[in-house]
C-alpha cells in the first residue's frame, strides 16, 4: 500500500487571542504557535497503521511556507518515508481549490493506492482541498471518514453523518479519504525516528516545477473581522465564590435546581 498524506501547518488558535493584522485580510501571527492541523494528525496515523499492517511507503505533502519543514520533519518522525514541501511563497494568495490544483501536479506523479487528508483545516475551515484533489485526480473520495477496512481493491468505510448516524460504504481503490478526528490515537515519535527524520532531505517544489499561470484562484478574502455580537451572555463577575453565589441564586430563583 503506497499512501500519500496531505498535511498543513496551522496556527493553534483554540485558546489564543486572534487579532486581525493591519492589512485587514490576515491575522497577526507573531505571537501564535504553529503545529500540525488537528485532523491531519489522525490522517497521518491512519496511514502509519496501514503501513504497519501491510507495508508500502508513505509520502507526506504540504503546501506551506519554509517553516512547514519543521512540521514535515515531525511527520517523518512519526512514520512518513518521504516529505515534499510545495513552496507556498511561490504561489501568491491561495484558497482551497488552488491548493488542491497545486497538490495535484505533484501527487499525480507519485504512485499511490490511497490518499489521506484531514477533514478540515482549523485555520480557514475550507473542507475543500481533499475532495477537490480527488476530483482533479479522477479518483473516488469519502469525507468525514471514521473507520476504514481495506479489502481487495476496495475499502469498507464508515462516514460520520449528522445526529450520531454513520454511513457504511464500499469504495474502490485508489481513493482519497478525508478523515475525521477520533478515528485512531495519534502516536508519539521515538528518539530514533526523530534522529533519522532530522537528517532526511525534504524535497521542495516550486514555480519552476508547476505552471503558475494555469492555476485558478476562486475566492479571495476581502476582509477579516470580529463576528458581530448577536446575542451576548450576561456575564457574572467577581471571585469564584461571588460568581457561584450569583449563579446559584439565579438557578434557584428559576427553579432549575
Amino acid at each position, binding site marked *: 500500500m503506497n499512501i500519500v498524506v496531505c498535511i498543513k501547518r496551522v496556527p493553534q488558535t483554540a485558546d489564543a487571542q486572534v487579532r486581525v493584522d493591519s492589512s485587514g485580510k490576515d491575522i497577526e501571527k507573531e505571537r501564535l504557535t504553529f503545529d500540525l492541523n488537528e485532523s491531519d494528525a489522525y490522517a497521518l496515523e491512519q496511514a502509519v497503521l496501514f503501513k504497519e499492517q501491510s507495508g508500502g511507503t508513505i509520502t507526506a505533502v504540504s503546501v506551506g511556507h519554509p517553516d512547514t519543514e519543521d512540521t514535515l520533519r515531525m511527520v517523518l518522525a512519526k512514520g512518513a518515508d518521504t516529505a515534499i514541501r510545495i513552496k507556498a511563497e511561490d504561489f501568491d494568495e491561495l484558497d482551497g481549490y488552488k491548493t488542491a490544483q497545486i497538490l495535484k501536479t505533484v501527487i499525480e506523479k507519485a504512485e499511490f493506492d490511497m490518499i489521506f487528508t484531514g477533514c478540515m483545516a482549523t*485555520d480557514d*475551515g475550507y473542507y475543500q482541498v481533499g*475532495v477537490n484533489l480527488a476530483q482533479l485526480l479522477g479518483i473516488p473520495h469519502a*469525507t468525514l471518514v471514521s473507520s476504514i477496512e481495506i479489502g481487495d481493491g476496495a475499502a469498507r468505510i464508515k462516514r460520520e453523518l*449528522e445526529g*450520531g448516524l454513520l*454511513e457504511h460504504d464500499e469504495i474502490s481503490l485508489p481513493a482519497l479519504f478525508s478523515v475525521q478526528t477520533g478515528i485512531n490515537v495519534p502516536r508519539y515519535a521515538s528518539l530514533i525516528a526523530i534522529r533519522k527524520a532530522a537528517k532526511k532531505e525534504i524535497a521542495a517544489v516550486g514555480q519552476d516545477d508547476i505552471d503558475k499561470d494555469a492555476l485558478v484562484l476562486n475566492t*479571495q478574502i476581502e476582509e*477579516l473581522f470580529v*463576528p458581530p455580537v448577536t446575542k451576548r451572555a450576561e456575564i457574572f463577575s467577581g471571585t469564584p465564590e461571588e460568581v457561584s453565589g450569583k449563579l446559584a441564586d439565579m438557578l434557584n430563583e428559576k427553579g432549575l435546581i
Partner: protein
Amino acid sequence: MAEILALVEHRQGSLRDVTFELMSCGRKLAENLDTRLTAVLLGHNTGEFADDLKTQAHRILVLDDERFKDFNSESYQQALSQVIKSENPVITLIGHTAFGMSLCPALGAQLDIPSSTDCLDIEMNDGGLKVIRQMYEGKLDARVRFRESPSYLVTIRTGCFPAEDGNLQAEIVSSDLKAAEPQHLKFIEYLEAAVGDVDITKADVVVGVGRGIKEKENMAMVEEFAGMIGGVVACTRPIVDAEWLPKDRQVGSSGKTVKPKLYIALGISGAFQHTAGMKGSDTIIAVNKDPDAPIFGEADYGIVDDLFKVLPALRDKITELKQ
C-alpha cells in the same frame, strides 16, 4: 437572470431540516436578484417530498431513480453536474452537511465552477458574489469574494437561514435524466451509534464538558456535580475522541441534539458544530476562561474564569442552598 438551484436533502425517508433552510436562503436570493428558485429533488418515490416543498420554491425539478434513494456522492454528483450544465443556474445552494461536504467541492472541480463551503451569509450584486464564512475556529469572520463566473456553488451552514413557510406554488417538473450505475462507491447501510444507559436527549439538566476539562481524571468532578443537580453529563467531540465518554454523549451536529431546561457548558469553546446541538436549550450557562470564546454568544449567562475554581465554589453554594 439565470435561476437559483437548491438541493433537497433527505435521509431515511424524511426531508432534512436543512432543506427548508436552503429554500429560505434561495427565496431571499431569488427575490433580490429578481429570478426564480428551483428545488432539485433527487430521490425515489418522492411524491410526498415534492408536496411538502410545494410552497417553498417556484419549481421543483424531480429526478426519480431507485439509485437516488440514499445519498451516494458519486451518483448524485453525476446527475447534479448534468442538471447544472443544462439549467445554467447562477447559484447552486447545497447544505453544509456530510452530504454537501462531499458533493460541492467535487462538482466545483469537475465543472470548473468556483465554490465555497460553510457559508453563513451570501450576497450577490454588481460586485459579484460574496459570502461570509468563519475562520480560526469561530474567532473571526471573513468576507470572501468570488472570481467572476456565470455560475457559483455554495454550501450553507445549518442554522443560518431559519426555515419559513413559503407562499409559492411550485411547478413540479420531472427530469428525464437517469442515474448511472456508480462505478466506485457503493452505499451499504446506515448504522446507529450504540446507545448506552444514559439518554442525554431526555434529561432536563445537561452538563456539557469540553476540552477545558483537560484530563480524564477531572471527569469525576463533573459527574459528581451533575449528579448533585440532577443532571447528566454530555460533551464535545474531543472528549469522545479521547474516549473519556462514549459517543452517545456527544452533543452537536455529528452527535445528539439536546433541548434541556438547563445546559451548563464547562470549558467548551462553542464551535458551531457543538452549539448546533444545544442552542435550543431553555437556559444556557457557560464557564470559560477565554472572554472571547464563541460560546458566550450562545449562552444566557456566562462566567469568565477557570472552571476548576468555579465548579467547586458552585458546588459549595448549591449545597448551601439545598440545606
